[in-house]
């Protein structure tokens, strides 16, 4: 179980959406990152209101997947976004 809240992104991060996929730009680091469809879905839920468990539950419901089966991938994606500075630690 994880009660840690995910997000919100720093104010320096800008998100653009093209055909459902999100691209991120961080003004402070001047880095850009293109997210695939799954990572984009995680990003949209990383609003600082939801916990990691809630994000996983919502994704499992949306994609008709087992929460346990997607947990590792969601955790990895969140960790990558944090490590790249697009989400707060």
């Amino acid at each position, binding site marked *: 179980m994880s009660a840690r809240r995910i997000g919100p992104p720093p104010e320096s991060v800008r998100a653009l959406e*093209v055909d459902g996929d999100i691209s991120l730009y961080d*003004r402070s680091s001047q880095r850009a990152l293109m997210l695939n469809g799954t990572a984009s879905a995680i990003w949209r839920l990383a609003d600082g209101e939801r916990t990691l468990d809630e994000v996983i539950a919502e994704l499992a419901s949306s994609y008709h997947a087992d929460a346990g089966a997607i947990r590792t991938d969601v955790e990895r994606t969140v960790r990558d976004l944090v490590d790249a500075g697009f989400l707060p630690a």
Partner: protein
Amino acid sequence: MTGPPPLRLSVLGTRFVVSGGQEVLAEAARLLAPFGSSDGLAGTDLHVGRGMPPAQAVAELVAYLNATALSKVDSLAVHAGVVARDGRAVAFPAPSGAGKSTLVAACLRAGLAYVSDEALCLDWADGAVHPYPRPLSVSAWACTLLGIPGPEPGMLERFVTPDELSAKLATEPLSLAHLVLLDRQQGVSAELRPATRQEAAAALLERSFTHWKRPERAFELAHHLAGAAQPWRLTLGDPRAAAPLLAGLFT
């Protein structure tokens, strides 16, 4: 004793005054005619051709002008081949060796107008495409493929003007209508299929020379253009078979 008058050039807004021997300047003037400047304004002084064969001197001049102008240009410049028809451009961002110049040459043979075999120069404000018609740099292999004379002995490439390929220059700013991602493969049939807009935006940023000058604007512009243009992926087999597919995008 006085030499021939210097050659004055304006390349993507950077000015050069080139002096040298008669043969080198005459060839440079022929190849670089679209960049000729007659306003007499000062520019970087260059002297070319000392102690080297004319073909090599011209090659070094063109390489220097290209590198210098692209480092100074006030636009989002992307490593790409670009051709056009009726004010609309198709660009294929790709690294060196991906087949840009050969595909551009084949497209000119297929009736498209020349924009550049080197850089897609996008206006920072509105994304308009500014032509950069440097002479095409065509490899010996590509010259053979296209049925045109090859490089001089000792040279790997030959500069080719659009005239030699019976093509016209695009001279006015263009709108970017199509973005094509190249997959170069040997022994396959040329095939064009849709790509995603995000792939197109990524290609523009990955191949940009100048995004570092205005990184956030480059990010915006790449996504704006990827959203406005049609994104494609081209399996590039024989460029002569691929060129009609690109020409067909305009029909």
